[in-house]
């Protein structure tokens, strides 16, 4: 959690960003140690805000790899905290580690690959949209983000299919 919270302050050591990073570390760390998923989620959100603030203040050159690593780290953190919360006080078969790694690593790798594809696609779209007015670009981006969020919500909240 400290690594994820430290991305923003490392990028821009401004007091506000550092304070947000510390808050993210404390909240997320508490959630991780106490195995409380909502607290870890709050810590992750604070880390994202610190990272966004650092990017807005510093305006560095594009760091898509850092963004992809941050996203993958957040997924890993939440999955780990959730698993630890579920297995509290229970006997855990050592063979589970192999099973989980076999499933988690491909998901993370796929996430990084999709991020890379997004960067490439975004670059191509940026080239395509060069010269278009800024409000139009913002509107298209917002529409894209809203469509993505709606798709995810629809995917997750649709009725579960019975297992065969």
């Amino acid at each position, binding site marked *: 959690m400290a690594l994820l919270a430290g991305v923003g302050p490392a990028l821009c050591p401004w007091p506000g960003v550092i304070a947000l990073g510390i808050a993210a570390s404390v909240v997320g760390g508490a959630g991780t140690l106490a195995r409380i998923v909502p607290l870890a989620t709050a810590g992750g959100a604070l880390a994202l805000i610190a990272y966004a603030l650092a990017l807005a203040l510093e305006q560095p050159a594009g760091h898509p790899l850092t963004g992809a690593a941050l996203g993958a780290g957040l997924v890993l953190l939440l999955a780990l905290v959730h698993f630890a919360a579920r297995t509290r006080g229970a006997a855990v078969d050592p063979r589970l580690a192999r099973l989980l790694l076999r499933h988690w690593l491909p998901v993370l790798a796929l996430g990084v690959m999709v991020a890379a594809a997004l960067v490439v696609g975004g670059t191509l779209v940026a080239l395509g949209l060069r010269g278009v007015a800024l409000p139009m670009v913002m509107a298209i981006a917002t529409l894209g983000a809203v469509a993505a969020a709606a798709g995810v919500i629809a995917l*997750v909240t649709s009725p579960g299919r019975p297992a065969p």
Partner: protein
Amino acid sequence: MSWRPTPLNLSLITLLGWALLLGVLSGRAELIVAAAPLLVALAAGRRARPAAGDWRLARSVSRDRLVEGERVTVTVTLQAFGPSQLVELYQPLPAHVRLARGHHHAFTAAGEGREIRWTFELHCAGRQRLRLGDLHLRRWEPLGLAAAEAVHREISEVSVYPHVTPIRRPPSPARTQTYVGHHVSPAQGEGIEPGDIRPFVPGDQVRHVNWRATLRLGALHVTQHHRERSADVVLLLDTLADVGPAGDSAVDRAVRGAASLAAAYLARKDRVGLIEYGGILRQVRPAAGRAHWERLLDTLARASVVFTYVARDLERIPPRVLPPQALVIALSPLIDGRFLGAAADLAARGFDLVVVAVSPIAAARTLVGGGAVTDLAARLWALERRAELDRLRGRGLTIIDWDGVEPLEAALAVWQRRPRRRVRA
């Protein structure tokens, strides 16, 4: 078994929303890129839900009868023939049972026909009919984004019997039955216990001639013998009220005493019956033998306090359950006055009654802990109780005071030193 999304989805969606929102607000592509792994995880969680396949789940217990304080091993066997997947197993524990070894909640990787054995030990502190209920099984999507639940319906019962301490000399009955047993009857006849000496009459056997008396008195005299007979014993257990922690309450102690007495009398070939006097009036008619001993233990294991305003009338109990010649041993913490009334009524009706007063003070003290005020209250309670027992003795009741901690035989020995009533046939 249908898959349901877990709250982890909400957490991922929250972070995804934040990443997209911040990306749009700041105009930085890195945040949109950061959202990609979150989106992929959500989509993967939707897809990676293995089919249930064929399952075999079984549960067994190492013993179906044990004595309180002993342990029972529960073994769960799981065999799944589908793809390897994350499985959670949970066995809810009944009250008054604690885990002695292992866990009653486990996570394992099942599938590909592999058999998984999961064992844990339960410690049964108090007597009871232990019922292990349904076993819960939950299959997890590997990231924890969805779960499918199932319940394995199976009941396993274990009888936890009260602890029995040996009693060498239980209270002797005032009246005996016609069957051969271990109690010396006042009636003369065939037996080994010598009785009176009387002059010889035709028909007496030569082996009964008392030669010493014959030489001294100058005429043939014979020794008479007492018959050895069995007795009917009815244990009257008071379950109207209780005090103390579960597994070591006053009623639990009384039950242990009742089981010990039953074992002692059954070993002497006596017939033993049981009446549970409480909210539910349970009865076991007097009988002897191994099967009857187990029947008594089963009834004692189930004995519990059921609240009622009704004062049960023992007159309604049929004579075959409460024979008029029986020795009635009442075990009670003497908390509820209705039991005292019933016991006094039995004594007034001519029953040979012995009341074992199980002290509830020690049981109550284990519940409330120590302290000066508690000590003072316990001393006052003990004084009150002693005065009450003296009052009952003054009314003609035979009272044996037992603290429930020391062996019951010690309390009986104190009582047996007193002169005993003459046994009537």
